[in-house]
């Protein structure tokens, strides 16, 4: 018993000395840890190219902040929250990391932010879709940057209903993520005067979607929405094309669809699909210029996740420079003080729940005739203004939001 007490007091003592917030760059370095899936299912989403985007930010910033070197380390999370949790813990304890970037699978991100919560380091989430990250899982130690499911479901649905797509059929992935997308879409469609005529739930990683597509086709709905992700969405879209959903007059809407997915499918298969994105490489001159740099290094056009990694890192480094500190609390406050004006967005701002609020875009995949090269994939149909894009704070369950 005595021994345990001794050990406990010793531990408490070390914790106390480490606790005080310092307005300085600790260890004479700004250390950034990039945590993402480098070898599994979500490799294309952020992966090695996301690390490249992060390195670009560091180089463009000059490699140092106030004369202190910026150091980038990286780790493969293998999509495992165990790995994420222990890696981030070790980064905090042994490597004194100041910022964690990347963060893709929602389970990984939530595990990482639980460890970050209360530490001196901050997490900049770009890869994850789950809107719960700034809702019930919000913390003062992380910011969610590029996108989340709320605008994907809400904006896609309301924009399509506004254009006359009243009757919906939803093909839903049968787990929490798909269910929440489906219920978001249902709320919006019904609020805007549309109707859900049918839904079907398919298991994760289904190999064949023909049965569900056939049911969607038979339903006679004007719009077929895919509330799934990754390989499931890709295969849904392929099968929708095969069974001629578009030819029979149905609009296909993918609720979570990335540039990398569309690129993999090609415009011939994916043409006409409507989707919401946080950013598009060809949206304006600044975006194009940055993505040209990116292309030179990676031989690929950046997705909104890659752009978000660059944008958030730059914004972070600027705040470190202004405050002369790498302490999460101080930097977080400084980041929220300044609007985000860069190649990613104009007038973006960080809310108290950690959500970076910015314009989103409703896009449509080009037809083969419109598309001039393999990456010429979207035309932007309309801009969804920042204030109406994300979950309003009035609906938030985040403990940081004062009500």
């Amino acid at each position, binding site marked *: 018993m005595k021994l345990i007490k001794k050990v406990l007091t010793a531990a408490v003592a070390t914790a106390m000395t480490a606790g005080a917030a310092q307005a300085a760059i600790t260890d004479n370095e700004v250390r950034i840890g990039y945590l993402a899936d480098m070898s599994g299912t979500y490799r294309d989403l952020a992966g090695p190219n996301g690390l490249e985007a992060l390195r670009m930010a560091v180089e463009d910033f000059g490699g140092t902040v106030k004369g202190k070197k910026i150091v980038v380390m990286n780790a493969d999370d293998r999509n495992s929250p165990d790995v994420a949790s222990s890696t981030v813990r070790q980064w905090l304890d042994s490597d004194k990391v100041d910022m964690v970037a990347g963060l893709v699978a929602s389970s990984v991100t939530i595990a990482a932010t639980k460890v970050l919560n209360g530490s001196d380091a901050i997490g900049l989430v770009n890869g994850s879709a789950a809107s719960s990250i700034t809702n019930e899982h919000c913390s003062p130690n992380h910011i969610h940057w590029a996108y989340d499911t709320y605008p994907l479901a809400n904006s896609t649905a309301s924009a399509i209903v506004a254009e006359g797509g009243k009757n919906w059929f939803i093909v839903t992935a049968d787990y929490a993520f798909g269910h929440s997308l489906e219920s978001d879409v249902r709320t919006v469609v019904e609020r805007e005067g549309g109707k859900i005529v049918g839904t079907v739930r398919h298991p994760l990683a289904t190999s*064949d979607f023909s*049965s569900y597509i*056939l049911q969607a086709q*038979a339903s006679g709905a004007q719009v077929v929405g895919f509330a799934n992700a990754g390989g499931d969405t890709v295969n849904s879209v392929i*099968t929708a094309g095969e069974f001629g959903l578009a030819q029979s007059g149905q609009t296909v809407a993918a609720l979570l669809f990335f540039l990398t997915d569309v690129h*993999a499918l090609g415009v011939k298969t994916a043409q006409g699909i409507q989707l919401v994105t946080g950013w598009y490489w060809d949206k304006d001159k600044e975006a194009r210029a940055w993505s040209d740099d990116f292309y030179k290094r990676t031989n690929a056009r950046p997705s909104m996740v890659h752009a978000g990694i660059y944008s958030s890192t730059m914004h972070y480094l600027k705040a470190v420079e202004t405050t002369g500190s790498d302490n999460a609390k101080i930097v977080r406050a400084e980041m929220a003080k300044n609007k985000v004006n860069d190649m990613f967005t104009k007038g973006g701002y960080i809310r108290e729940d950690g959500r970076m609020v910015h314009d989103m875009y409703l896009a449509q995949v080009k037809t083969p005739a419109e598309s001039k090269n393999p990456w010429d994939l979207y035309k932007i149909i309309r801009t969804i203004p920042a204030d109406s894009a994300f979950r309003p704070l009035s609906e938030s369950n985040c403990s940081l939001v004062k009500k």
Partner: protein
Amino acid sequence: MTMIFGVPAAAFFGQLLLGLINGAFYALLSLGLAIIFGLLKIINFAHGAQYMLGAFAAYLLLNLLGINYWAALFLAPIIVGTIGALIERYLLRRITHIDHIYGLLLTFGLALIIQGLFTNLFGVSGNRYPVPSELSGGVNLGFMFLPYYRGWIVAIALVVCIAVWFLIEKTKLGGYLRAGTENPAIMQAFGINVPLLVTLTYGFGVALAAFAGVLAAPIYSVAPGMGANLLIVVFAVVVIGGMGSIMGAIITGLAMGIVEGLTKVYYPEASNTVIFLVMIFVLLLRPAGLFGKEA
């Protein structure tokens, strides 16, 4: 409209047909597994990866050499089958004398390597393989729109399955194969090159997986992970059928496709688990599987 168990007859028949198409894939894959098991007594865990290799072979043949679908239908299985034969010759053969579990473990390791390599080379998003122009479009059957290509899958898969059954059950070569399964030592004594037979058999089983992969390429995303999850379902199909007979593997594959297809109509949430549930029931009632012979 006529209803069948609360579902319009049109939808019912449509789903039945789609189930049969999926069943054709299960049949091809479990057939390959059964042939390999028959002679080598191992479960080929790399079967899913080899199915993926078949699809990628077709994709690469088209994009690098401009070789079209019809040629790929022959070439891809030959290429991947040859790789399989090499795997047997240089790896599997060295461990035939020990517990067959090691064969499973070896092929599991190979599956990891192959899938990992392709993930690094081609990314995970997958690639698109076009439907051959001769088979694009479809026909309205009245109860559903049937893409020609899906019809082709069922037809060719059935033809190949029956041809394989005929080859093994009715020809001299098949006779050697079956005898080799029963008693390799006597076969050797009769002057038949059993090791060569084993190599060719493994190569042939792998080629069947690759063939299924080529068939799948135009309708699914050609991605490194395409075979991994499918394989576990096929394992369950194999357990249900028992690995005793070639015809058993084919029939069980088709039947399970239909069972799964109907589940997608009546209770879609269970469509991926239904085959496992069937497996449990079969195990309780007939532990050796529906067509199994072993004690």
